[in-house]
């Protein structure tokens, strides 16, 4: 596990960011990606690497939900992939040259997330975090950890733990 995670994973450990200083300091970095028009983000510590769309082997089992597309081979590791579009209830589109698989890891579990397009890595500042009502109560928003309001628009930072452990739809 440790050897496959890239240099990203070294700075901050997942979960450490819970202490948010009120100063204008960078709390963490986030990798942003687009699904349709909406921009989402994943905190960098969770991100292992970004790939294109490799050959996906479907797991033919009725119990496996539709948004789990199958398994891929990431340097001899078998990693399941989730299509974020269908995970968020959007219609799937055909994979193109912009489609990417973001490999994220939490503890021992590694998952690939298929997204429309990977955008940038940005700094998460306390001042950008929008004050919002408790998001977890709203079912559609339960994957969202917090919302960033940036000059170029709103970005929804995802709660990876929820995506990995709580994907009953």
């Amino acid at each position, binding site marked *: 596990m440790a050897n496959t995670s890239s240099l990203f994973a070294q700075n901050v450990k997942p979960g450490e960011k819970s202490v948010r200083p009120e100063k204008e300091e960078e709390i963490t970095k986030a990798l942003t990606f687009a699904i349709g028009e909406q921009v989402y983000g994943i905190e960098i510590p969770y991100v292992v690497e970004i790939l294109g769309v490799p050959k996906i082997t479907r*797991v*033919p089992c009725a119990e*496996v939900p539709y948004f789990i597309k199958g398994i891929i081979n990431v340097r001899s590791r078998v990693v*399941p992939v989730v299509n974020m579009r269908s995970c968020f209830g959007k219609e799937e589109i055909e994979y193109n040259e912009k489609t990417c698989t973001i490999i994220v890891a939490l503890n021992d579990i590694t998952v690939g997330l298929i997204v429309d397009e990977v955008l940038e890595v940005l700094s998460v500042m306390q001042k950008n975090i929008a004050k919002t009502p408790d998001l977890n109560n709203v079912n559609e928003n339960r994957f969202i950890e917090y919302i960033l309001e940036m000059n170029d628009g709103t970005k929804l930072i995802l709660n990876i733990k929820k995506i990995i452990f709580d994907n009953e739809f």
Partner: protein
Amino acid sequence: MSKIESGMESMIDMYIFETNTLLEQLDEILLKTEEAQTFTGDDINEIFRIMHTVKGSSAMMGFDELQLLAHKGEELFFIIREKPDNLSDVSFVYDLVFRMSDLFKAEVELIQGEGEYVATDFSAVLSDLEKGAAILTSEGGVIPETASLSSPAASGGGEFGEGFMTVRIYFQEGCKMENLRSSMLLNKIREEADVKDFYPKDLEGDPNASDIIVEEGFTVTFKADPEENGAVLKLIENAINVESYEVIHNNASGQSGSDQVAASENENEASIAAAVSLPTDSAATSGASVQSVVENAPAPVKIPSSDTAAPATPTSNTNQAAHLNTGKQSIISVNLAKLDQLHDIVGEIITTESMVISNPELEGLKLESFLKSARELKKLTDELQDTVMSIRMVPLAGPFQKMNRIVRDMKVKLGKDAELKIEGESTEVDKTIVDSLNDPLMHLVRNCMDHGIEDSVEERLEKGKPAKATVTLNAVSSSGEVVITVSDDGKGIDTEKVLHKAEMNGLLLKLPSEYTEREIQNMILLPGFSTNDVVTEFSGRGVGMDVVRDNIEKCGGSLTVESKHGFGTTFIIKIPLTLAIIQGMEVKVDDTVFVIPISTIRQSFKVQNSEIIKDTQRGEMIMIRGQCYPIMRLHENFAIPSEVTDFEDGILLLVETDGKSACLFADRLIGEQQVVVKPFPAYLGRYNIKGAGLSGCTIMGDGSISLIIDVANLIEVY
């Protein structure tokens, strides 16, 4: 109490490993000696050593409770060692020590387990141990000092420094029982002075001791103040039946005594004595000396105390003491996780190798020397793989030996006389499999003892069987799998009773008369089945057999029952030699590649549509050699949109496992290949993929993933 003292985390694994090994050794000795109903000197000393080591390492790790427990156990055996004759009734000692060993194991498991470790209160067993010690101390009334073994035989003459005196005592001619008299005298001297050495060593046990004393006298070396020396001499002088005595050495070395020991005792005895002699000289004198042993022992107690004594006597490397140590030096213990990692890497190397060698970019090129090197590489990687495999292989002796203990406990509790026969314990299987075999084996052995063996000896005698029942554990390896059988010569499975019970529990799927004997026998493996009317401590709750089957199936094995009513029952466990690499047949269904384990394939063949038999529903069957097999279309089963739907375009594979068979229909065969089995990622663990007929996946030479078909489950699905 915090789980571990800081800085000890790295030691904890070692501690657990070592303690468990020692406890297993302890069990082994206890079982061996219990059979003989007597402790030999070696056994007692070995147990003593184990207790001592456990105590030392527990103290080092800061497990005070364990240290105390071990200390009490050590004390008990100290008494036994000092006064072996007091041990008239050994059975209570066994119960006590087994109980202690169980507590130890449970505690070590607690330490090993997740979460905060809270020390268990052992006060109950501690007080029992004390009681036991008290019984042993008081019992008998025989002269207590027969501690021939505890005396430091190995101590060289140089150790006898100032204030030592060696006296040779002659008893009156014809006074008889010189050995006992010497022993009593020795006892008295001990009250006055510190006895260092005496000869003959074995006053009670050696039948020749009396003769030696008559001929050569009884030699004692002791340490005392000059004034007290006089008192001792007076004591000797006044002792009954003492004819004369002579002072051989005074304030000089006690060489003579030691020399005699080495010269006249036979090698075996010398080595035993040497092996057990404790690092401190005072060990022989009193119970308090146990404490000093601990203080003087090397803190990490990595080396058994026998090692410390070994250099002093070159003769000691002959038998048991040496035997116990030799095996250890050439073996190192490796963290299993590291082995797994190594194993994974080797698997990856093999995949990468074939990616390189059969790279599509090389096609059409003339590559003579490349192919030569490639072959060389292939040879080496094959060898590497075999070696890594063999590292992971461990003999089944471990789990088998543990069953001795189960049989022993149940024998006592159930009042059934039985013995455990172990065959083929040197058969090797993958370490992970061995670990997962412990529980199933235990359940099966318990089942044999509890249900299998007749309740009364009369019942057995009536059938013409020996009164003592036999439970046999056997292991043989045959073509890629290991077959382990657990059998008893008990009453066997009463098929009528089983059928009746199954009917009552609503487990029957067809008419009772339609079941074959074999099917009925295997019903006992169904969940919620138990023919035993009374729930006992050991079995009878109806869980168990199906759990056993699940556990075995989890590691890729199978469990079946064979029984002859009135003659006994045999459980047959078939497990793969190794989990990780299987010989597989790749088949293609549309774009998906499946791997079917070669071991399950009986035949592959083309068919004409006219040979297919269709039943009233949608079912399709085929007749092969007079037998009818259902056909499963893989593309339908796995919902793959395949263009090949006509039987004449594809291929059929006859597969068989666990006595069930079916024909699988695939598009085409690709070929045979060794594949490294990888489990499905943990993320998918919550979905019942195995139930759908897939056991894992594997990465192919071209980097793509193919799915491994679990034939047993696939047939089940159908």
